[in-house]
């Protein structure tokens, strides 16, 4: 009953830098969700919470420079756990891309998907150890 419905990374202009869906949506619906999330999240300021009610779900989000990392979960799921899951993910990206920036996510989108799949799978947190994730990523990189 409780799992991540989607993960979105968007910039302030509303450009999607990553969209990962963990339940079936058709393309129109995905587009609508992307726009709604952007509208809901960007109007909030630093004094606001990192949580927004969203339809029958909630969005847990965190802003890094111009990028919004958003996770959509069920309303009764643990807010802070996902808030820190986002940060954990960002720290891994930062380590992996050596000081990550928005364009890393654009050009290396296929690697970002790999990072996501290592850390989140089927809408669940799969691996939380940064050491383990990075070790696996480096191993995969060596295969390229």
């Amino acid at each position: 009953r409780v799992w991540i419905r989607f993960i979105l990374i968007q910039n302030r202009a509303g450009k999607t830098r990553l969209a990962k869906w963990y339940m079936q949506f058709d393309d129109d619906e995905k587009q609508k969700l992307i726009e709604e999330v952007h509208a809901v999240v960007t109007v909030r300021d630093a004094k606001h919470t990192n949580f927004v009610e969203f339809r029958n779900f909630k969005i847990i989000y965190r802003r890094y420079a111009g990028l919004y990392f958003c996770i959509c979960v069920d309303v009764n799921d643990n807010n802070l756990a996902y808030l820190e899951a986002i940060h954990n993910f960002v720290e891994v990206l930062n380590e992996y891309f050596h000081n990550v920036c928005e364009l890393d996510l654009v050009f290396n989108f296929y690697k970002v998907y790999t990072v996501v799949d290592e850390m989140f799978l089927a809408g669940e947190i799969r691996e939380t150890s940064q050491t383990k994730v990075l070790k696996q990523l480096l191993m995969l990189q060596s295969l390229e």
Partner: protein
Amino acid sequence: MLAGSRPGVGKAATSRRLAPLCSPSPGKSKEAEIKRINKELANIRSKFKGDKALDGYSKKKYVCKLLFIFLLGHDIDFGHMEAVNLLSSNRYTEKQIGYLFISVLVNSNSELIRLINNAIKNDLASRNPTFMGLALHCIANVGSREMAEAFAGEVPKILVAGDTMDSVKQSAALCLLRLYRTSPDLVPMGDWTSRVVHLLNDQHLGVVTAATSLITTLAQKNPEEFKTSVSLAVSRLSRIVTSASTDLQDYTYYFVPAPWLSVKLLRLLQCYPPPEDPAVRGRLTECLETILNKAQEPPKSKKVQHSNAKNAVLFEAISLIIHHDSEPNLLVRACNQLGQFLQHRETNLRYLALESMCTLASSEFSHEAVKTHIDTVINALKTERDVSVRQRAVDLLYAMCDRSNAQQIVAEMLSYLETADYSIREEIVLKVAILAEKYAVDYAWYVDTILNLIRIAGDYVSEEVWYRVIQIVINRDDVQGYAAKTVFEALQAPACHENLVKVGGYILGEFGNLIAGDPRSSPLVQFNLLHSKFHLCSVPTRALLLSTYIKFVNLFPEVKPTIQDVLRGDSQLRNADVELQQRAVEYLRLSTVASTDILATVLEEMPPFPERESSILAKLKKKKGPSTVTDLEDTKRERSVDVNGGPEPAPASASAAVGPSPAVPACCDGLGNNLLLFCSLMFVCKNNGVLFENQLLQIGLKSEFRQNLGRMFIFYGNKTSTQFLNFTPTPVPRCGLDSLTRTHLNLQTKPVDPTVDGGAQVQQVVNIECVSDFTEAPVLNIQFRYGGTFQNVSVQLPITLNKFFQPTEMSSQDFFQRWKQLSNPQQEVQNIFKAKHPMDTEITKAKIIGFGSALLEEVDPNPANFVGAGIIHTKTSQTGCLLRLEPNLQAQMYRLTLRTSKETVSQRLCELLSQQF
């Protein structure tokens, strides 16, 4: 990292080949981008169609470009085949791009699905952990039914195989979870389930993390099969929370050991009631205490990540404590902890504390503790900058509301409503309306509150709300005059909301006569006031007002000509709206042709509404999504039962509806044949006394009961000086409709001497056996000849279900534990009623003891309440019963709640006991 100061310059050398496609510089036009992309697409298409077979590297390059173009937001309608080809490559990068393309651009083309599944099958069998991982991730990402059909059998095997690598196990667990979510019917439980549970013991915490998610989801649907996970989860959790912050190395996050895994384990435990095994239970309690203790320790780091991770675990632990709702000590500690957060400088924590306290408010153990924070919460309502925090404050005020603070909370909500965001106004309106109704001691206050609601936020007052106020006013005659006066005054405002006109029109039409004596609100003044609003109103409101006018014709004959003039006017009689026109025509005709009597009958005051669940509550549930608020409301309803907030007056005339039917008084002229049904209320709580008396006959009783058996001595006294002849008293069980097939009560007796001398007394012994629970008391039919006439008397014999009550003593903890176990709606019956006798504590105690139950002292946290427990013995079953009586001296009311495992028993005992106070 992603710092704002960093210039947005691409630097990843490996990706430079994609750079020309991407236009981060905003100067370039959209058309130019599309042109460039179309050119690139044409190029890729020609490569794919070219004569020369592409090598793996080129194929990967172009598939990757297609993906990139797709992710930029352009449609892609080719390349699927090439992507599928990549799946069978032996190079990781090629395979990875192939799988990614499949995962992102899911295509249900059946040709391809077969090929894809084939490739996945090969990779799963490859024993190469990297390839197995890619294949499992693809299944988990796509999760289609076709994939479930193909792999639901294979994945569990990989998951529990002894030689599977840890990282593959992690992926397999979550892959299986995805398949189970999409197609549970295709994932059969089997041998693997018990082995999956043991993954909770795995050395690799990543495997435990993934497995816990899988087990939690499976356990929700199959709790029995995964029961063993409870003790394993507790011991795993215990090892984590007691570990030093460095023990778990990789899994320690900002000095917090395995926070996500802890959260998941705590969630898994929320699929189950508190552990039965005392050792496991003790260990879990220790864990929870440790987590609460750690919250009080100074932070090991000033970083927000540290406190977030720590508090993630803390909030989940509190959720579990609330879920168990059985350890008062932990509940109160949780509440105190949240109380600290209410004033924390982090908005996130204030928000979460408000949210979490909302559920604590519904536990009877912590409700009072939550209430102590009322001022902080009200302050949050006034000062928080984030609307969602204010919203949580409203929710919490709603949850903590009971009789003691209802007036304050309703007043605060009303004043907040004046400035509240539009998005949440309707919900606040509903909440205020519900609280005002639920906790109204004084219905004048209720009417004032609703009229205030309409004044402040009329647009957000839905039909349900104003229908409800009318229902309540109609059902309660004590408030009708006040309501008429108040709406009349409110209507004086130059601009009043249309909803007020509706309520005003309806109420004055019914009860305008109650204020018509005052010249300031004479019939004509009332009419003119309403009619001054008429032209500004919408059609439905005008239609309602026309009905008010015709009601006025009946109430106040003196305004009849004025009203007829209005009805006769063109704007009514020839109104373009059919409904209005028809009403005008019919009402005018009715007022002309009908006699006063007929008018009075047709336009009689509305009868009381049948009592039903407040439609507002249903509306509130509907308004907030299905998942969240249904639960909230359910717990809320439960709370209103559990928590001691003093009795609630029944909304509207509920008390009349469910209250006892009044006893038929005994009457007998002693001459003719009388059928006499005497509801012997006074015998419910005692066993001896005079049952019946008239000029001829007195019947006395003495009885004793033990378990399901009883014996009753009936004494018949002839009060006259003449003999009674053919004296035949016969006790007959009356067991309702099914008495032919089933006997609930066996009565055995011997005939008595048919002659009773004047002034003499005869005795009859009745042996009673209760077979099963029953509602109808048996009847004693007595026939005899007195003088020349045949006498016939029927009296109810006071053998009631509670006579088979055996008192049970128990501790407070046992009581509330059992109370909670009997929480199905069918098991509980509640009645709220006006006191019919002076509310004296000692008498009440005596009655409860007389009723047969044990009176449990010092069990209820509120010493004013009475709780009792006992067992109803029948031949066929024993039914444990718990009862709770909550007096409210101020309102002169009681709330009585019965919980037993049998609905009919709860029902009957509640009826019987309600009549006693």
